[in-house]
């Protein structure tokens, strides 16, 4: 099946700093989503981005499908950005199975 790798596994930032999270996938995808899992375990949809670039406030994401990677940018980080960021993809056409990466654990310190 499709493989999803995220980097870095852990990231500690000072409040106000910027960061880039990376997601590599091993095959073509029909869907790519970025999620934020808060400390209470809730998965929050950040972006649905099988290709192209999107922005939502301080967050933006870019997926280069032909090169099989996606990037999530966080600018001016805040302590509330802490948590785990997951990239998840749907590979095989007609499948709905989301394959998740192992996540990037982000800690933003004041």
């Amino acid at each position, binding site marked *: 099946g499709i493989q999803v790798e995220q980097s870095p596994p852990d990231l500690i930032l000072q409040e106000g700093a910027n960061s880039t999270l990376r997601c590599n996938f091993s095959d073509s995808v*029909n*869907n790519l*989503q970025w*999620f934020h899992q808060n400390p*209470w*375990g*809730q*998965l929050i*949809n950040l972006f*649905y981005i*099988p290709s192209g670039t999107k922005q939502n406030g301080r967050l933006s994401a870019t997926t280069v499908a032909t090169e099989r990677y996606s990037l999530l940018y966080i600018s001016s980080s805040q302590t509330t950005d802490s948590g785990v960021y*997951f990239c*998840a993809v*749907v590979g095989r056409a007609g*499948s*709905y*199975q*989301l394959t*998740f*990466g*192992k*996540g990037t654990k982000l800690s933003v310190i004041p």
Partner: protein
Amino acid sequence: SAVISQKPSRDICQRGTSLTIQCQVDSQVTMMFWYRQQPGQSLTLIATANQGSEATYESGFVIDKFPISRPNLTFSTLTVSNMSPEDSSIYLCSVKGDRVGEQYFGPGTRLTVT
């Protein structure tokens, strides 16, 4: 996007017992999914639940251990049977979104088995 609720939000159970987790959606959805997240790990799909048909289980998950019901288009249950400490996880339900492959997740049920 759909609003999804789960009950219970958390529970502590004795080994050998069973727990049924409920997932309620505020709109009719064709496809619902159940995921497991073991401590410190990523999410793994347990099964896909379509209304009116048997759930489809992923490799490594069996119906006897994780029976699923899908009685209508807004509700599903997952039962974790004959629990052991290895079943301690967050269990999340999700629903298919409007776009290809898109999914939205419920708040999860945090299960601890002692």
